[in-house]
């Protein structure tokens, strides 16, 4: 059972030196570290229960199927979905959004329809919609962001959320601003005009309690690797009624009810959307990660991460020439994003690495937003359950040193 006071011991990768300094891992928005329980769940599965799922009737195959379908049930519970069948396993957020955009989109979008996004969307919640727009003739439209403070400009919602809007897709937490969006309100507004809603949950799944029914969304996409599970597995939640009316995404073994040389029939969800051997090995890490996060308490995680985000924002704000993005007050996710006029983000990241600090610099897959803000990129520090206030002090000291070096003094 994990426990807040001994938490860091659960994460093997944290206990290493980088360039002779203790690792300070502040790149959690890109991917989190994995607790021992997750790494062990994976090895144990492959050491004992490994066999292909679904079509197998022998002991190992039945155990593997139980583990795989058990992970589905666990994720359904974690999100408070109405049924396991509403959980489709994918490689991660990006594939989940591609699945909705391509499958739902090809069946429902046509010329004249509008896909509404926000200006703060990650490329993964933007490019898939550009691709389906091209294929169907639908048009994209954007809800603006207010500027450096990085809030959605809700005053403009009525203007952009018109009856031509068939789908409204937005992120729960911005990965470059730290903004936590009022997603329940956005879903309710979309519902009024009959648009479906897609929440990009990449940055919320591991950081907040998520209840898809309370949020009122139609789809919710996330990645396991951003919540302590591993890469290669994630999921799409979708309301059953919508899923069952959607055409398949990929074709192949496991998703068909019958195949003939010239035509085929599909199984219902979730099988319809899971062609080929599923990633059952990695799926078991979702069970372990959900258990781990629930044992820590998701309310408490939200508080912890958000407090670190706030603290970092405050401590960094005194650095000379710093430009800080994201909400100045109000709710904030566990990350902070900043820029200096004279020192490029990549130089900061390379220098901070010499102090053992892992940061990320660049456009964070938010090119259009960066362009709007007149930035080529920012440096981002992002936190998770194992990060501490002391690590923020290490970061601030390192940044002071870097600024000094580049100012030539």
């Amino acid at each position, binding site marked *: 059972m994990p426990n807040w006071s001994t938490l860091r011991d659960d994460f093997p990768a944290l206990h290493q030196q980088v360039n002779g300094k203790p690792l300070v891992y502040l790149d959690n928005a890109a991917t989190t570290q994995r607790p021992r329980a997750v790494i062990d769940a994976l090895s144990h599965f492959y050491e004992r229960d490994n066999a292909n799922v*679904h*079509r*197998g*009737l022998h002991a190992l*195959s*039945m155990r593997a*199927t*139980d583990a795989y379908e058990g992970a589905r049930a666990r994720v359904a519970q974690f999100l408070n979905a109405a*049924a*396991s*069948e509403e959980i489709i396993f994918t490689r991660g957020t990006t594939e989940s959004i591609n699945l909705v955009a391509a499958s739902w989109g090809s069946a429902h979008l046509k010329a004249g329809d509008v896909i509404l996004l926000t200006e703060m969307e990650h490329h993964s919640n933007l490019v898939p919609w550009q691709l389906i727009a091209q294929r169907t003739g639908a048009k994209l439209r954007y809800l603006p962001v207010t500027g450096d403070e990085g809030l959605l400009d809700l005053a403009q919602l009525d203007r952009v959320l018109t009856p031509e809007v068939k789908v409204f897709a937005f992120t729960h937490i911005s990965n470059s601003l730290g903004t936590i969006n009022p997603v329940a309100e956005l879903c309710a507004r979309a519902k009024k005009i009959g648009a479906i809603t897609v929440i990009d949950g990449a940055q919320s799944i591991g950081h907040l309690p998520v209840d898809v029914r309370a949020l009122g969304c139609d789809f919710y996409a996330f990645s396991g690797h951003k919540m302590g599970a591993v890469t290669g597995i994630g999921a799409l939640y979708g309301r059953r009624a919508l899923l069952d009316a959607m055409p398949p995404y990929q074709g192949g073994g496991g998703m*068909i*009810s*019958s195949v003939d040389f010239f035509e085929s029939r599909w*199984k*219902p969800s979730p*099988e319809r959307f899971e062609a080929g051997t599923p990633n059952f090995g990695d799926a078991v890490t979702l069970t372990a990660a959900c258990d781990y996060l629930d044992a820590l308490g998701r309310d408490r995680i939200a508080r912890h991460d958000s407090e670190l985000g706030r603290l970092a924002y405050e401590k960094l704000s005194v650095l000379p020439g710093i430009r800080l993005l994201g909400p100045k007050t109000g709710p904030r996710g566990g990350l902070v994003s900043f820029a200096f006029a004279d020192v490029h983000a990549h130089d900061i990241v390379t220098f901070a690495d010499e102090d053992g600090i892992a940061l990320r610099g660049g456009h964070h897959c938010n090119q259009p937003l960066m362009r709007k803000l007149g930035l080529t990129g920012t440096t981002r520090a992002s936190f998770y359950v194992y990060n501490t206030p002391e690590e923020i002090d290490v970061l601030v000291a390192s940044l002071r040193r870097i600024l000094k070096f580049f100012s030539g003094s």
Partner: protein
Amino acid sequence: MSDLTDLYQQVILDHNRRPRNRGKLPSANRVAHGDNPTCGDQCDVYLRVDGDRIAEISFDGSGCAISQASASLMTTRLKGKTAAEAEKLYAEFHDIVTTGKEPEEISDVGAFAGVHAFPARIKCATLGWHAALNALKGDPAPATTESHTD
């Protein structure tokens, strides 16, 4: 092989080798098709419903011993029953195959209690029943065990 002798004990083997009410029913006024896509089991159920009762019933199909024996036994259980009675018998059977609890009165259906140890085979055991209930309701969609609602 204790579980297996339970599972395939005489009743199942017997129904499998000498299926009851097998073949098309020329006088049928209801028919439904069931399939189990994962296994490839198939089952057609034919009914002649007279008033509110199943006057005659037969099945035809192919599949594993469990699916065929279960369909055969199902026909003997449902003959002469009303739709409400059929639903009740199915509920009892479903309970047996999913929990492994033997029925209260000694009955042939008890032979299927062993199925609960083989979750992947529950679909085989319930296939014929699904088709029969669909035929009773006059539901034109083929019964499929992939609906996650058995």
